Each structure stands twice: as C-alpha cells, then as structure tokens.
C-alpha cells in the first residue's frame, strides 16, 4: 500500500445498479498505473461515465472495492478525492460567476489554501488569462470546457479524469488539449480520458480500455494492441492488369481490385515477416510487374469496431444458447 506502488487506482469487482435492476457496471476489475494515460473507449451508454463517477464519489457503487493510492474511496474519501481532478462530460458552469472566482472556488472546495499564483499559472496555460474577469456565460463552448479543466487543475490533483474532453471541440483546441495532457503527463499526473475519437486515443494514450455493456472487455498497451490485433496490408500497384490470381497464391489472403490493377495482400503483422518475402519472391517468379508498393496498418478504429462486434456476437450467442 505504499504510495510508490505501481498502480495508483485499483478497482475490484465493481458493480453499479441504477434503480432496482439496471446494471450499468458488471464486475469491473481495473488497475490504473501511476503516471499513465489511459483511454477508455466504448459506445454510448457503455458505462464509461458511471465508472469515472464511481471513482470520484459522484455515484455510489452497488458493490466492489475501489482504492486510490492505497486508500479506500469511501473510508478515506478526504485523501482520495483531494488527489483527483474531474472534468465532467457535460458543460456545467455557473453563468454569473467570473472565471477567476469559479476556479478559486474549486481550489477552496478541495481544501487547499488560496494560491493566486497557481490559479494564474493554470489560467495562463489554458489561454484563459485574458478572460479571467469574464462572466462564464459570455464564454464560448470551447472556453467553458477549458474553464472546467482549470477548475479540475486548481487544486493540483495527481490524477485527472477527462470525460470526453474533446467532444464538440475544433481541431486546434483538440490539439491544445493533447498538448495539455502531454504536459501533465510529464509532471507525473495520471490521466484517464474517455473519447469517441479513436485517433485521439491512438495519439495520446499509453493504454486502451474498451467498455461495452458495463463490462471491461479489453485493457491493453496501445502498441501491443495495435500490433496484436492490427492487420497489415501490402498493396501492389500492378504495371499490367492481372486477369486472375494464380492458384499458387491460394495460401495468401489476396484481393484483386475490380480494375485488375491493385493487388492487396492482408497479413497478420504479429506473425513472422518471412511471409512477405515469400510472397514477394512468388510474385517475382510469376513475373508479375508492379510500379508501386506500400503497406497499410489497420487503425484502432477498425480494431475497436471489430471488438465491439465480437462482444455483441458473444452476447447473442449466450441468448440463443438459453
């Protein structure tokens, strides 16, 4: 339970039942590593926000244990909550407060002595400094989002939850957001974010978790995930159209394009690479000429869609078996 242990958050058999029978989380086990950026993906209603709310104390777990830095979130809520900053999914702000007041309020609420220097630094880093005396209702949606981030950072948290930080945010602000995450990571802050933009997870996350129907169906290093599940494709642009794929190639997963000019070979990037050289030698021996050659790796998005579909398939399997 030392504060230097590898995992900063431990979640064991977490269940959440809303009302009398809606199971939003079903036996979630998850260890979040100190200093990592973890992206949680999952379709609408999967339970991402519920999971975050349970850790932060907004939603009461129905059963299960959550510890933050070795402390139980219910028994030692003062310690665990002061370590956490939360940027909620919904844009909720007090319209008539100024930026400066609302951010200072957050710091006080989290039990920290006033520190105008810190608030100033946070506002400057989020490009909100010249808006500090503006009322919140005069800010644009993107600025309000930043104010929520400033509020979450006002008390110097060691863990930051960002629930869809880039929903409805333009490209440049999204890039800013990624930069902020990167800076916080270098300061050693553990970051958990949810997103529907897979390229975002691909860009900034160290690990990726996928939630569907209240279950954590996958948690994996991003790179390992990409190479493990990722399919690679070798595309050959042929000099002359090919009538059909020679039968010697039946062991290879090949597709010939309609116009007979593009040959696509799909292979598993995790398996040995001699497959490709073998393939290219075969191409050579059949005197198939090509003018260009490129490879393509499947994106997280494709991986994600496949995963969720598989999970749906499993579920259906269970239903028909009953």
């Amino acid at each position, binding site marked *: 339970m030392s504060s230097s242990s590898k995992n900063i958050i431990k979640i064991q058999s977490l269940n959440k039942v*809303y009302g009398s029978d809606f199971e939003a989380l079903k036996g979630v086990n998850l260890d979040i590593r100190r200093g990592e950026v973890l992206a949680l993906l999952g379709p609408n209603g999967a339970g991402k926000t519920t999971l975050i*709310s349970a850790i*932060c*104390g*907004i*939603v*009461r777990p129905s059963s299960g244990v959550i510890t933050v830095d070795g402390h139980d979130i219910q028994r030692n*809520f*003062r*310690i*665990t*909550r*002061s370590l*956490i900053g*939360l940027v*909620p999914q*919904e844009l*909720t*702000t*007090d319209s*008539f*407060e100024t930026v400066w*007041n609302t951010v*200072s*309020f*957050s*710091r*006080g*609420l*989290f*039990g*920290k*002595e*006033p520190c105008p220097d810190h608030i100033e630094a946070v506002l400057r880093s989020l490009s909100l400094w010249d808006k500090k005396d503006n009322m919140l209702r005069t800010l644009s949606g993107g600025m309000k989002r930043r104010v929520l981030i400033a*509020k979450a950072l006002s008390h110097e948290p060691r863990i930051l939850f960002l629930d869809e930080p880039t929903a409805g945010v333009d490209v440049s602000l999204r890039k800013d957001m990624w930069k902020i995450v990167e800076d916080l990571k270098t300061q050693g802050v553990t970051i958990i974010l949810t997103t529907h933009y897979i390229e975002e997870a691909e860009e900034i996350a160290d690990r990726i978790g996928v939630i569907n129907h209240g279950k954590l169906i996958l948690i994996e290093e991003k790179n390992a995930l990409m190479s493990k599940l990722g399919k690679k494709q070798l595309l050959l642009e042929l000099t002359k159209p090919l009538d059909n794929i020679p039968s010697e190639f039946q062991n290879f997963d090949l597709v010939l394009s309609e116009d007979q000019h593009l040959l696509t070979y799909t292979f598993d990037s995790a398996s040995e690479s001699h497959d490709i050289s073998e393939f290219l030698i075969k191409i050579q021996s059949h005197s198939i000429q090509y003018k260009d050659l490129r490879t393509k790796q499947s994106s997280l998005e494709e991986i994600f869609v496949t995963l969720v579909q598989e999970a749906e398939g499993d579920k259906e399997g269970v239903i028909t078996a009953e």
Partner: protein
Amino acid sequence: MNIYGVIAIFNYEMARMKRTLIQSIVAPVVTTSLYFVVFGAAIGSRIQQVEGVSYGAFIVPGLVMLSLLTNSISNASFGIYFPKFSGTVYEMLSAPISAMEVVLGYVGAAATKSVILAMIILATAGVFIELEIRHPVLMLLFVFLTATSFSLFGFILGIWADNFEKLSVVPTLLITPLVFLGGSFYSTEMLPPIWQTIALMNPVLYLVSGLRWSFYEISEVNVLVSLSCIGVFTCLCLLVIAIIFRTGYRLRA
C-alpha cells in the same frame, strides 16, 4: 476538517447576495415601510395599544419573524437547489468535503443573510417607532436560532425539490399563512377562545411569542417553551439532513 471548503461555499453564497445588493437591501426596507404605513397607520389608529404596547411596536417582532422565516428558507433552498439544477453539484460531490461541512457552508451563509436582513428591518422599524428591546441578547439568540433552523429546513427543501414550483410552494403556501395566523400582527387574546386553542397548534406562534417577549416581556406562551421549540426543530432538521447524506437521497445516484 476542510475549513477552506466551508469558507469557499460560504463566500460563494454570500457573493450571490452582493450581486443583488439593491434587491437584497432595498426590498426589505420598502416592504417593512409598507407594513408600517398600512398596519401601523391604518389599523394602529383604531387599535391604540395591545397588552400595553403601541400597535406599531407590537408588530415589529412579527415582521422580523416573517422575514427571517421566508428568507432563511428561500436562501438555503435556492443555494443547494441551483447547483443540482445546473449540474455543478458534481464538483461538491467529488470534493473532499463532508456532508456536515457542506451544510455548514450553505446554511451558514443563508442564516447570515437572514440575520443581516432582520437587522435592516429593525433599523427601518426604528424610523417609524421608538424601538425598545428589553433583552437584546435573548433577542439576538432568537434571531440567530430561528435563522439557523429555518435555513436547515430550507436546505432540506432544496434537496427534496425537483422543480422550481416545489421550491416556492412551501414558503408561500405554508410559511406565510402560518406567520399571519401565528399572532404576528395581533394578540391571540383578541380571538374567540376556540381560535385561541387552534392558534396554539401553530408552531410559528411560539417563535413570534418568544421573540416578542425579548422585546417587551409580553408573550402568549412561556419564553422557555419557545426556546425549546426552536431547539427541537433544529435537531429534527439536522437528523433529516444526516439521513439524506447517509442514503445519498436525491444527490448521489
């Protein structure tokens, strides 16, 4: 104890009052003056004295009580209802602050505001009549306890309410009638005996009576009974709040 958290909530709530300074101060001055003009001048010219006190002076404790009750309830209920309504309550729920500290911040601010208002009303009354307060410390104690207990009640109301209508229905349809029927502007001795008995079932009567005793040493019921009434009410409210936070009622899903 998260003292900075309590201060943050307190200041935040007081800042709301500062934003509406004119409304907060001018409104009670105008209403109090109206009461004096209407009740004091119109009725007071017919009723010279009530139990040895001029009619104008007689209604002062009632006016103070009316303002204390309605303002404590509406301040505290709006204070907690609004974050719930706008969604900003997420921050309080995720902060390292205990239920009782939250209550201290909200109820402390609401009660402070009503005490300030009560003082403004007293000062306004002083313009129309000569104020006489025999037991100032007891008077302040009554004002303070009433403000606190009814702010607690307002806090509960704000948590219970899930729309604006419920929020305003209690002060206007429950509290105001009780104050008017509770001997604020007349002595129950002026009523027929049967109504005197019914009036004794009105809790507000005990508050008004106690406060009036601290002014003029005249009362409908013993002043100690009045004090215990407020004490019991405060404890009841605290108990309900403790239950609310233990069960997460209407705050945590």
